[in-house]
């Protein structure tokens, strides 16, 4: 049976999830809800017929089984709770909510309503991070003692279509804890690899004149032992396919880096994957969607996992509990900064 899906929020992420959903065997996006008429027109151009200016109306449609929630971060709580209360299975972009308390509320609601919830921790679905974890878990580098997690990008790099950066990026209230954006992925990857952790040190700083920090160094120590330095920043002009991300693990028996697992030349990789997909197409096999972009294929993998879990009545790999623990650890970073003002330069 095909799962009928609605999307709440048709910005960049909503559009991406719609395009990715077309490659899902057992799911089909049938409706889109967004406050913006421009976004709804864009959804119409993508072939969606059921368009809603109010997502509550969409949620009243009994035919819709699952909802993909992709509005700006500060709107996740309300729309996710509404979807869960309506009895829909939910895939929600990270962060699940702006506070760990709100993540708990969502978790409680999902359990009470007996529906499944997955949070979009797509960095766990990169081919490179999956291989890194599998190798580490196999014991190939012994016990990790030290590790580095780096991710630098910018919300300010425009797409090829000249559009302003969304206004909410500049609103401190709406952005909330800045580490909920890019930093979230690194905190989550640390927890995924090494389990629960505590904050050893943090420094939050500004390069640009944002109303909030735009770069940070965080040192975490897992209860199992490994320590990690997380470096994250919003300050770089990186134009696709440039991607400044790496995880390096230093173990007692060797070292491992995603730099060795990610294609060295992403343009060459795109060309190779493009040719491979064309051959698959010619020989009537299924193509590997977005594999030519390397990092975007993680969205395909996570969506495939979500719909697979719905079809087979399994719990998704990344649920509200994981999101709660990641958000709580980020809250610990900010609590640390409040406690140790000399160690953290906070945006005024």
């Amino acid at each position, binding site marked *: 049976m095909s799962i009928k899906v609605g999307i709440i929020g048709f910005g*960049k992420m909503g*559009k*991406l999830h719609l*395009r*990715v959903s*077309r*490659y899902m065997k057992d799911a089909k996006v049938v409706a889109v809800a967004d406050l913006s008429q421009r976004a709804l027109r864009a959804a119409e151009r993508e072939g969606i017929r059921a368009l809603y200016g109010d997502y509550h109306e969409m949620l009243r449609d009994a035919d819709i089984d699952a909802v993909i929630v992709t509005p700006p971060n500060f709107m996740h709580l309300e729309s996710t709770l509404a979807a869960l209360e309506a009895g829909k299975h939910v895939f929600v972009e990270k962060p699940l909510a702006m506070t760990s308390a709100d993540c708990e509320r969502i978790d409680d609601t999902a359990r009470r309503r007996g529906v499944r919830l997955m949070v979009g921790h797509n960095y766990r679905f990169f081919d490179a991070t999956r291989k890194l974890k599998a190798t580490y878990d196999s014991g190939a580098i012994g016990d990790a003692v030290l590790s580095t997690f780096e991710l630098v990008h910018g919300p*300010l*790099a*425009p*797409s*090829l*279509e*000249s*559009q*302003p*950066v969304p206004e909410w990026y*500049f609103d401190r209230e709406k952005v909330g804890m800045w580490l909920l954006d890019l930093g979230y992925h690194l905190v989550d990857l640390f927890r995924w690899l090494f389990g629960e952790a505590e904050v050893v040190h943090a420094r939050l700083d500004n*390069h*640009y*004149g*944002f*109303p909030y920090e735009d770069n940070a160094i965080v040192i975490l120590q897992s209860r199992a032992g490994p320590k990690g330095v997380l470096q994250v920043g919003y*300050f770089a*002009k990186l134009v*696709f396919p440039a991607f400044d991300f790496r995880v390096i693990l230093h173990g007692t028996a060797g070292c491992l880096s995603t730099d060795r697992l990610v294609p060295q030349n992403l343009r060459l990789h795109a060309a190779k994957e*493009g040719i491979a*997909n*064309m051959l698959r*197409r010619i020989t009537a096999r299924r*193509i590997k*969607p*977005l594999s*030519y*972009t390397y990092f*975007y294929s993680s969205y395909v993998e996570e969506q495939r996992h979500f719909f697979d879990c719905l079809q087979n009545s399994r719990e998704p790999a990344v649920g509200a509990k994981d999101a709660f623990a990641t958000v709580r650890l980020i809250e610990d970073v900010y609590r640390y900064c409040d406690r140790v003002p000399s160690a953290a330069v906070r945006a005024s």
Partner: protein
Amino acid sequence: MGTIVGLARTSTIDEAGIRDAVFRALDLVGFETFGPVETVAIKPNLRFYWDYSTGETTDPRVVASVIDYVRERWNASARIAVVEADASAMRTRYAFPLLHYDRLASEKGVELVNLSAGETCELEVTVGRRKFTFPLPRMLFDTDLFINCPKLKVGPYASGNALHITCCLKNLFGCIAKPRKVGWHPQINEVIVGLNKLIRPHLNVVDGIVALGQRPVRLGLVVAGRDPVAVDSVVARIMRYRPSSVRQIRLAEKEGVGSARNISIVGEDVKAIAKVFPSRSPLAFKLAWTGQLRMLRLYAKLSGDAVPPLLD
């Protein structure tokens, strides 16, 4: 003696070094004001929200030095405004604070003006056989001194299908009050020249402290001059382009905006600077850029694969 274009370099890229280079370049030009300077408008080049170290936007320290020069040489109590208009993907209300222009404004006691927000006038201009009407900020015509402060860079048009040099002539594109300017891109050279026929900056001070070619490069250079066509011709030579091969320069000269001939270059050796500039071939760029996009579209059509919204 022809039009003077002054070049000054600093080996120490800090506030003092930049100030010294700006003052030397302007002294070389020997610009004299025609009357009392009570109001001054300075137009930097802000692109998206990128830092000056990327070679994309004018360094606020260059603008600060120009402000100091105006106050020291012409009028210590002149009312100075740093001006920029909103663009399709950039809002000045965010760009000014993000790029630390608000700090400059409070330190120097100058005003920051969004050219898209003030009073505008619709002006018509003809370039060749083409007629254009632009909504332009009235303040630019009412100011005693208008100083153009572009960045020395080469980059793709917003439409992405060709490279162009962005310097004095192109920086006036950012004076159009209407934020969504992409509609003018198909005729960009004519539009640039038309704007330069309507708005005549009194002085041009080019920020080549960090310039942009194939990649950003620390040149520590300031170029100054009165004639935008002459300054852009010198900049084109620094980028290792023949000025006569740059359409906007050729067209601007033909339309009487300025002259690329009889230029007296003083201060630095253009050839020596050109040697370290990471030049970028317009043809190679065009082939690579349009080639990639066409390949992607063709691939998506034939294979049925998706294109991420980022690449739309």
